[in-house]
């Protein structure tokens, strides 16, 4: 795309203002994500109060240990992402590369464990729809539906994150990021931590519903 005759000078007076503008833009986007997941949390909140017993039964069908392990994995990936961001601010590109790789691996582990849980649900005939075990408590199928929708949407956001990390890894290998110019890393960090926060709420709501 050919820029107009004189390259459009940055609309900002200084880098500091540019940095805050980036943060404002990213946080506004995260506000939309909060409300995007919020629709599902509303559905969960309404149906859990309508079918409390079915939700408790549904929660027991989930694998508690895998859920807890997954939460720890995701918290770990958040740590490595935060470390990576701190390293690039010191200009240590190799340390950033290691942290990004660690984050990606932990993300992949999370998704693998999640896939195994989905398979386990399939094995127990708990997939919503025709295959659903007959005679289940009313609302149990709703819980399972909500479980798949919420964790599915979260997993989708993780996949998008892994894709972005692949791009960041390639850019970092080409030395694009310096202490002065590391906005993509910081912005992606906000996105990744946010996805982790969504899981921080999903975990108790889905796995820890008391008897």
């Amino acid at each position, binding site marked *: 795309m050919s820029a107009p005759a004189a390259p459009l000078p940055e609309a900002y007076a200084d880098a500091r203002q540019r940095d*805050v503008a980036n943060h404002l833009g990213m*946080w506004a986007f995260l506000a939309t994500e909060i409300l995007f997941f919020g629709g599902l949390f*509303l559905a969960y909140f309404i149906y859990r109060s309508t079918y409390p017993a079915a939700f408790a039964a549904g929660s027991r069908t989930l694998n508690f240990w895998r859920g807890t392990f997954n*939460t720890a994995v995701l918290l770990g990936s*958040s*740590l490595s992402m*935060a470390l990576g961001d701190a390293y690039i601010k*010191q200009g240590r590109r190799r340390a950033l590369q290691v942290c990004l790789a660690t984050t990606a691996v932990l993300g992949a582990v999370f998704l693998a464990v999640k896939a195994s849980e989905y398979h386990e649900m399939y094995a127990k005939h708990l997939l919503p729809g025709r295959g659903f075990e007959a005679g289940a408590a009313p609302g149990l199928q709703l819980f399972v539906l909500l479980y798949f929708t919420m964790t599915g949407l979260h997993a989708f956001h993780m996949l998008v994150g892994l894709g972005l990390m692949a791009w960041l890894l390639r850019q970092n290998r080409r030395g694009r990021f310096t202490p002065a110019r590391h906005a993509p890393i910081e912005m992606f960090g906000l996105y990744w931590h946010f996805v982790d926060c969504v899981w*921080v709420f999903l975990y*108790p709501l889905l796995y820890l519903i008391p008897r």
Partner: protein
Amino acid sequence: MPESAATFRRLYTTFGALIGLLVVTAAVSSLPSGWWSTPLSLLIATAKAALIFTIFMRLRDQPALVRIFALVGFFWLAIMLTLAAADYFTRFWPA
């Protein structure tokens, strides 16, 4: 702003706190539960989210405007939840 060793130490301690909270909420949920167990697990989740927001996402050292942008999403979510709940929880009250 230079990343001092203190920043790294803060990151590690925050991670420790997060794992600690995870252990607590997992442990509490396996004990016999009462009416308090769901609010408690949500409280712990909020604490973990708050830690991630302030430390990992560096809301601590952002200007007030960025903090407002961070919280406005939750405020509107609260509007949606409370007013929708106003419908669902009063449906079967005597007219």
